[in-house]
């Protein structure tokens, strides 16, 4: 399930973000081999994307609902939001299983602090 959500996350980001010179995507997925995302504040996201030279940065995370409700996931998402909050035009995607979007959005909102206000967040409904 997780691998499928990551695949959907990658497909969504590639479809929506199409900079003129191409999008750099690093993902924790077998098709990306060694091109995996960097560690960010102690956690590795499922996806990192940006243009080059970087004028925006995107982090993405795929979560099953069981996983999303753990403390570790909360710390992980907060760490990603902290990272993005100090970067211009940053965006965070959370990809969750079908029919979980409302609950996931509520969890994500509860993790956001005022300093995360500049980060655009979106929850994707996986299929």
């Amino acid at each position, binding site marked *: 399930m997780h691998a499928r959500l990551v695949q959907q996350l990658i497909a969504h980001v590639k479809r929506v973000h199409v900079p003129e*010179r*191409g999008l750099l995507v690093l993902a924790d997925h077998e098709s990306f081999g060694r*091109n995996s995302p960097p560690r960010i*504040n102690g956690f590795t996201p499922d996806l990192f994307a940006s243009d*080059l*030279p*970087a004028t925006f940065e995107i982090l993405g995370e795929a979560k099953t609902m069981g996983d999303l409700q753990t403390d570790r996931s909360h710390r992980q998402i907060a760490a990603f939001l902290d990272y993005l909050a100090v970067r211009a035009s940053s965006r965070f995607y959370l990809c969750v299983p079908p029919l979980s979007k409302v609950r996931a959005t509520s969890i994500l909102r509860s993790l956001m602090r005022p300093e995360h206000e500049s980060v655009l967040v979106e929850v994707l409904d996986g299929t």
Partner: protein
Amino acid sequence: MAGVQQDLPIHEVELDRGNPRIRRFLEHYEGEITDDRIALALDVAGDNGDDSKGAISPDRLRNSILANRGIIQPIIVNRGADGRKVCIEGNTRLYIYRQFHSDGVPGDWSTIPAIVHDLLEADGLDAIRLQAHLVGPRSWDAYSKAKYQWELHYKHMMPLDRLVDLCGGDRRDVQKSINAYADMEEHFRRLHGPEDYYDTQRYSGFVELQNNKVKTAIYNANFTLDDFAGWIKSGKIGSLASVRQLPRVLGNKNAKAVFLKKGLKAALDTIEQPDIGADLRSASMGQLSLALREKVEGLPFSELQRLRANPDEDVVRHLADTFDALKSLLSNLGQLDDDG
């Protein structure tokens, strides 16, 4: 010593059993020396992860050949009196062509561009090997490589995927290189007037800046990349490897104040004053050098791997600082080669 350029069928050319790089790995091998065994030696010999002198790992070479749909520089072949053709230069490339061909990789890998010489004497063979591997092409410095990648991508609109493929397939390498170059040009260049010397050696400081902990620490402390460039230019950050220590310094109120006044080294000293003890302090430079060498040479592989995975550790910084100090001392003593 003129050769003729031809496309040769890959199985008509033999891998070179006399090549020193291959021989080094096979001299203790007692079985039959087959092409597969040579290929294994080529992979081991080539994959040392060090491209600082222009060498390239087989993996990156493979990706680059694939992206380019062939090789740019022909291999060099000698045709002997018996008609056998032996690859004098380009054994790894020949092997990669054979691999692609047998694996059915799309494209025509059945022939390979080659410069063919006839009846080269030992002398001529050695001249080619020496020029190819001991003198070799002069590798570009890191700043020039980054500048070229940036120009291809940003000015000439080469798509990112194409650029990454041609550079051997490592997206993070290309990302770090282009972002470091762009940061340096945007923030460091503006601190220089038309007559000022623009020190491109400072590029490695901007490579260290790409470590996300470093950038985040700068932003969190309410500084900008213009400030960072200023610290590099003014010498507040001396050793470029110590850039990765900025998060510790900027996160500590006292150390931050010392850093802004006196520089990074002084700031780090306020965070930690390692007690090296009276015995070590009274030891001579010779004794300390011998002891350090003994430690370095006896470093267990597991410890090496641990340090490699944790480049932020104090010991790595102390070693980098010691290396800088030794380099400077040896240079003053006239004991250092130009290329370090």
